[in-house]
C-alpha cells in the first residue's frame, strides 16, 4: 500500500472502525464507527480496485463509493447467510474488513506506480457570512431532528387505561398490571377475586405514563375456575371501568 495514501487510510480506518464497532460498550459510538465501515469504505476501495490506474473523477467516485457499498451489504448478507454462524456482528465485521483490505491490495497492484496528485489541494475556507449561514442551516437541521423526537402535549388525544392479568402456569399466582395513558393523574380501585367467594382490593393513583403491578396468591380452590380482575375509577366508583379474566388450570386443584 506504500505510496497510496488513500488506500492506506481506508485500510487503517476499516481496522479501527471494525474494532470500535465490535468492542465499544456504547451503542452510539459503535454506530458512528459502523456507518463508514458499512456505507463508505467498501465502495471506495472496490471502486479503486475495479478502475485501477484510471480512477473516475470525484462525482463518479462518490457515486460508486455509495452504490458499491450498498451492493456489498446486499451481496454480503447473502454470502453470510450460507457461512457457518450466519449473520452476526462479528461475521459482518470480518467480511467488511476482508472486502476493504483485499480490494485495497488489488487496487494497489492495479494502480502501480503510485498515483501522485498533480493538482494542489483546494482548501475550503468559506467567507464569514457563508460560514454563518452554513452554521444556521446546520443548527436548524439539528433542531428539526430534535423537535421530531420530543413528545408534545396532545391535550385533545383520548387517554385510556389498560388493565391486564397473567396467571402463572401452575395457577397459584397471578400478575395484574394497570398502565395509565390518561391525560391526568387518575385514582383507581382494583378488585381481584383470589378466593371462590372473596378477593383483594387495592387502591392507588397513577400519573400519566405510569404503570402499577401487583402479584396475588390464588386460593387452590379456584383451580379450573375463572379468576377476574376488575378496575374502577374513583370518579365513577360503582361502574366497572376495565375487567380482565383468565381460566386457571385444573392441575392446581
Amino acid at each position: 500500500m506504500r505510496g497510496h495514501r488513500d488506500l492506506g487510510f481506508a485500510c487503517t480506518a476499516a481496522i479501527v472502525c471494525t474494532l470500535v464497532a465490535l468492542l465499544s460498550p456504547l451503542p452510539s459510538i459503535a454506530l458512528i464507527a459502523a456507518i463508514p465501515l458499512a456505507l463508505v469504505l467498501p465502495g471506495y476501495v472496490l471502486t479503486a480496485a475495479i478502475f485501477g490506474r484510471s480512477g473516475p473523477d470525484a462525482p463518479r467516485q462518490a457515486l460508486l463509493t455509495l452504490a458499491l457499498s450498498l451492493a456489498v451489504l446486499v451481496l454480503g448478507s447473502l454470502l453470510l447467510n450460507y457461512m457457518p454462524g450466519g449473520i452476526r456482528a462479528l461475521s459482518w465485521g470480518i467480511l467488511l474488513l476482508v472486502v476493504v483490505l483485499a480490494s485495497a491490495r488489488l487496487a494497489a497492484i492495479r494502480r502501480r506506480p503510485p498515483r501522485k496528485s498533480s493538482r494542489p489541494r483546494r482548501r475550503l475556507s468559506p467567507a464569514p457570512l457563508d460560514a454563518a449561514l452554513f452554521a444556521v442551516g446546520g443548527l436548524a437541521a439539528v433542531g428539526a431532528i430534535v423537535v421530531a423526537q420530543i413528545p408534545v402535549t396532545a391535550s385533545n388525544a383520548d387517554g385510556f387505561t389498560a388493565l391486564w392479568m397473567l396467571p402463572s402456569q401452575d395457577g397459584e399466582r397471578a400478575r395484574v398490571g394497570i398502565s395509565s395513558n390518561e391525560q391526568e393523574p387518575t385514582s383507581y380501585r382494583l378488585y381481584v377475586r383470589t378466593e371462590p367467594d372473596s378477593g383483594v382490593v387495592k387502591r392507588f393513583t397513577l400519573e400519566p405514563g405510569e404503570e402499577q403491578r401487583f402479584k396475588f396468591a390464588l386460593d387452590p380452590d379456584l383451580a379450573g375456575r375463572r379468576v377476574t380482575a376488575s378496575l374502577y375509577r374513583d370518579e365513577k366508583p360503582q361502574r366497572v371501568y376495565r375487567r380482565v379474566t383468565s381460566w386457571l388450570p385444573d392441575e392446581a386443584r
Partner: protein
Amino acid sequence: MTAVSWPARTFCAAGVGLLLVSLANALARGTETTTTAIYWLGLLLIVLPIFYRLTSREASAAERLFQVCLLGLALYGVKAVRDSLLFTFPDELVHAYSAGQIVDAHHLFESNPNIPIISRYPGLEGATSSLMLLGDASSYVAGTILVAAAKLTLVIALFLLFGRISGSARLAGLAVAVYTATPNFLFFNAQFSYESLSLPLLVVVLAAFVEREAGGTTRTGSWTVAIGILIAAIVPTHHLTSYALVILFGALAILYRVLGVPRANPWPFAAFTLALALVWLFAAAHSTVDYLGPVLTDAVKGSFETASGGGARKLFESPASTAPVTPVLARLISLLGVMVLAAGAGFGLLAVWRHFPRRPFALLFALAAVGFFFTLLLRFAPAAWETGNRAGEFLFIGLAFVVALGALQLFGSAGRLIRTGLAAALALAMVGGAISGWPWDQQLAQPIRAEAHGDEIVSEPLAASHWVSEYLPEGKIAAPEADARLILTPTQREAYGGTNPDVHDILASVELEDWQLPQLEDENYRYLIADRRQIAPDSVRGIYFTVDGNVELYGRQVVRKWTRVPVARLYNSGRISLFEVEGRP
C-alpha cells in the same frame, strides 16, 4: 462587502425549511392547531431556492451537484422528521420485522406472515442488518441511515446520468429537480422499503452504462464490472425493479439496433439481468408469480373494464373507507402540477426530436415520458391504479429529462423573472406530486406518542404493542391490520391481520360463526385482538391516538362475542382487548 454564496443560502434555507416542517409536524401531533400552511411553507423554503439556483446559467457543475444532493437529503429529512424514533408507514413495519428476524435468527428468508414476498427479497433487510449488528442500532435507526444513503445515491446518479446524456450540467440539475415531482418521491420511496434501495441502484446502473459508453475502451471493462455487481445486488432486493431493468435494457437494445448505433448493443445486460432474475425467481422467490400475477392480471382487466364504461375510480380518494376527502385546493394544485409537467413534456419531446433524433437514451426517455401520462390514466381504474403508480416512478426518470430539456429550450436564456417563474412552476409540480402521492390527511404526523404531566403516554394500539412485547408469552396473534403491524416491530412477534386466512372477517364480524374459532385454532393462533375502532383495519390511520372522542366504533358485540365463548381476556384498554384462544375450559 463579500457576496453570500448560493450554496450557503440554499443550505441555510433548507435547514430552516426542514425546521419549519418539523415544527409543523410537532404541532400536528399536538392536535390543537392546523399546521398545514407551516408545513407547505417549510417545504417551499427547501425547494424554491434550490430550484431557482438550478435554473441559473452561472452555477458550476460542482455547485449543481451540491444543490441536488442538498435537495435529495433535505426532502428525505421531511419524511424522517415526520415520525421520529419509530416507523409508522405500514410497509416499513413489515420490512422492519424482516430485518429483526434476520438479526434474531442470523439468517435470511425467515417467514414474514403479513407480506410473505418480502422475506424472499431480503436485500434491504440484509444490508440493514449490518448497521443493526455492528452499530447496535434498532431497525428504525439503521433503516433510516441506510435509506438516506440510498436517497443520496439516487440524486447523484440521476444528475450524472442526465448530465452525461445531455452534456449539460444545467439540464441535469433541472431534471433532478423535476424528478422530485414524482408522486412517490417525498414519502413512498423514502420509506424503509425494498424499492427505496433498489430504485437508486437501478439509476446507478443506467448512469454507469452511459459512462461506459462515453468512457472509451480503457474503462469499458471497469464500468462493466461495476454494472454487474450492481445488477447482482438489485435482483435479490426487489422483484419489480429487476424486471424494469430487463425492460429498460431490452428497449435500449432494440433502439440501438433500429438506429444502427455504432457501439456494442446492450442486449447482454438485458440477458444478464433476466438470467439473474430468473435464477432468483426459481431458486428463492417462486412465490413472486403468485404475488405479482393477480396484481398485474387485475390491472389489465380493470383497465379494460374502466375503458369500456365500468366503474371508474375517483381521483384523490384512498381505497380505505376511513380516509377523508382531499380538499379542492390541494386537488387543483396537483392537477396544475400535472399540467406543468405535460406542457414541459410537450416542448421537451419536440426538443428531443430536434436535437437527439439518433440518441438511444434520449429516445428511450421520450418514450418513457409519453408512457408516464398513460400510467396516469390507469389511476382511473380501481384495480390498476397501484400498478400505474409503480410503473410511473420508473417512467418519470425519462419524463424528468424531457421536461427539463423542454424548459431549457423555452427559457434557457431567460432573465431573472422568467427563471423565478420556472422555479415556481417546478415547485408547483413537486408539491402537486407530493399531494397525489400520499394521502392528504397523512402528509403531516398524527399523535402516536404524547407528553402528559411530564411523562410520555402512547396511543392505544402502541400501548398494546408495548404490552405484548414486555409481558405476553409466546404465541401467534390474530389482530386487525393496524394493531398487527405495530406488534410486528420491535416486538418481533408474529401478528397477522389480513384475509388469508380470513382474520379480518373473523375479528370484524358481530356474531361468532361456527367456522371462526376452529379456523383460528387450525392456524395455531394462540391469541386474538378484538378492536372496536372501525379504523383498526386501516394500517395507515389506525395506529394513532383518537382525538376528541372522534372515532367510529363497531358494536360491543365485536368484543363480547369472545367473552361468551368463553376465552380468557388477558388485556383490556377499553377499545382494544386481547384474548387467549388456547386453554379455555
